[in-house]
């Protein structure tokens, strides 16, 4: 894939992103629209009550995750699914590849799944000669553009209609149009054929219900339904923390997820898939394989940031994030952008590979304010920043400043000396090439408040 950015280059990525005026405009429209829709969709509902309940259910799951996973596996197996446990990305890729290869599958249609991005599944299959067609419109757009998704719900949100029009013209050989209706119609035509001729369908799952062994899939387009019911083989890939204990518990999330994500009371389609086609039925995959991916979650569960695993991938946090708004999703260099992305990326990829994304926040708290399952995002980001300092992934200028700060804060005399020094050095420091901070600040005054209060 071209142009994939690295988390280590976050600062450069972000600086570049703010200069991209069409990205800025697209992000403004997208985040404003999402937040308005969400507000409208949540108004007049007892959100605090719903969020408390949802958070409680998610915590309960995390506290007994292995048991719930076992229960899910048992029930899913009972209804005809084959359940695989994949310890990491490599294991997951292998399982999926061999399932497809053993059945001679050449063309695979995919419904959107963030974990398949996380484990880089598409590339793995494509280099081995398989054709993978993304069917979610936004995913389809970024796929033919050779880009990564930039938002977990609306992957092509960074593109405007003209860019999509030119893309379709170039890659599909169709006449240029920037009318979303026309563009959607083109995608519908192209993809319908793919659904009907695919050997297998790969999907994610928004939730897995332990008590019945079911998978729950929320979509608006209908591609989720196509992918999971038309081809004979359905492979569902999901991460282990997505379990919900019972259908009764699941009702709380049916209510919360679409509203938190897009303000809709429900997405157009919610499919509850329980095993393979049973005798007497006319709908359902002949073969259903469920791949439960760990890829670091058990480790996270044991640690101090475990609450991030409550996340239900609604995207409300990134939609309200003032930093995401101006830099878009690609700058993070990760599968997951925005506030939940900062935390999850550092935990999954490791401090050494992702620490700069911890700077992508002013700790304003807008994210934690909207999280439907009360993930304490600000607290987690702060905690990870402390770990970053302990691990030594800090810049020497900052460390020096903090060392000086540590001395000055304890001694008013030293503090005053520091103020005087900075006042004298200001004209020099301001002119340091590339110094983008001092020129934006006022000059330190000679007559500090302390001096004035001392009658000086």
């Amino acid at each position, binding site marked *: 894939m071209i142009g994939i950015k690295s988390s280590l280059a976050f600062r450069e990525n972000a600086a570049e992103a703010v200069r991209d005026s069409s990205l800025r405009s697209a992000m403004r*429209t997208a985040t404003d629209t999402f937040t308005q829709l969400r507000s409208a969709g949540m108004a007049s509902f007892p959100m605090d009550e719903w969020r408390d309940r949802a958070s409680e259910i998610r915590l309960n799951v995390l506290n007994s995750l292995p048991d719930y996973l076992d229960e899910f596996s048992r029930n899913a197996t009972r209804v005809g699914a084959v359940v695989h446990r994949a310890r990491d990305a490599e294991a997951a890729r292998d399982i999926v590849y061999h399932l497809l290869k053993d059945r001679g599958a050449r063309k695979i249609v995919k419904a959107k799944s963030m974990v398949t991005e996380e484990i880089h599944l598409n590339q793995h299959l494509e280099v081995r000669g398989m054709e993978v067609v993304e069917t979610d*419109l936004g995913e389809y757009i970024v796929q033919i553009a050779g880009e990564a998704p930039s938002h977990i719900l609306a992957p*092509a949100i960074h593109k405007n209609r003209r860019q999509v029009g030119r893309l379709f013209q170039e890659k599909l050989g169709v006449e240029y149009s920037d009318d979303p209706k026309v563009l959607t119609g083109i995608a*519908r035509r192209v993809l319908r054929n793919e659904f009907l001729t695919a050997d297998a369908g790969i999907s994610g799952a928004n939730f897995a219900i332990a008590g019945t062994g079911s998978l729950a899939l929320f979509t608006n387009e*209908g591609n989720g*339904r196509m992918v999971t019911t038309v081809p004979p083989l359905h492979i569902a890939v999901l991460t282990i923390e997505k379990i919900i204990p019972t259908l009764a518990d699941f009702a709380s999330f049916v209510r919360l997820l679409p509203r938190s994500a897009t303000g809709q009371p429900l*997405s157009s389609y*919610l499919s509850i898939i329980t095993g393979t086609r049973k005798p007497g039925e006319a709908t359902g995959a002949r073969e259903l394989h469920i791949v439960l991916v760990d890829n670091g979650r058990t480790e996270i569960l044991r640690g101090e940031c475990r609450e991030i695993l409550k996340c239900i991938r609604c995207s409300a946090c990134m939609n309200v994030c003032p930093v995401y708004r101006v830099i878009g999703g690609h700058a993070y260099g990760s599968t997951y952008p925005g506030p939940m992305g900062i935390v999850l990326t550092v935990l999954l990829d490791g401090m050494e590979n992702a620490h700069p994304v911890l700077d992508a926040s002013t700790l304003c708290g807008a994210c934690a304010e909207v999280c439907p399952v009360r993930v304490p995002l600000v607290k987690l980001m702060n905690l990870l920043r402390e770990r970053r300092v302990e691990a030594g992934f800090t810049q020497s200028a900052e460390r020096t400043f903090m060392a000086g700060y540590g001395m000055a804060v304890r001694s008013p005399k030293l503090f005053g000396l520091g103020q005087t020094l900075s006042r004298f050095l200001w004209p020099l420091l301001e002119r340091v090439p590339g110094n983008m901070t001092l020129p934006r600040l006022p000059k330190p005054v000679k007559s500090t408040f302390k001096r004035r209060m001392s009658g000086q």
Partner: protein
Amino acid sequence: MSDLVETFMRRAINMAAGVTLVNGEGELGQAVATLLSPEDAIYCPASTALEKGLTLPAESLTEDYSAASITVEEVFGAIAETGTIVCSSQGGKPLQAGLLPSRHCAILPESRIFATFEDFFATLGADLPTNITLISGPSRTADIELTLTVGVHGPERLDVIVVQE
């Protein structure tokens, strides 16, 4: 009309479904007829009593739902809370019939409307059918500039006919 029916209808309209209320089979036939046009290729499973009771133009009928322009069928139930209809694979219904054609006409007996998700889920035992799909309005996307477009990989029109007994 009961509160439950009223709530369902109001919320279904809010999800951009077309909604009609009829009394009994006679009115049902008429309501279905208004949704059809002579060019239509109609798929109807004709498995339930209400379905069998419909008089559909024989020359327009097709057994191949992937080639139909409209599917007319009785659905499993509905949830008033969000104006959602429920389709189930139970009893041999092909759910693809309500997915592939560009229009879906869902016949809904009043007695099958549940107030909330919890109420509906409580009626399901431990053994679920392979596929239960909750449908709220037509298929849609907003992936391009967040501009809403209707009719993507599913029907662009959903009509629900609530049948009061």
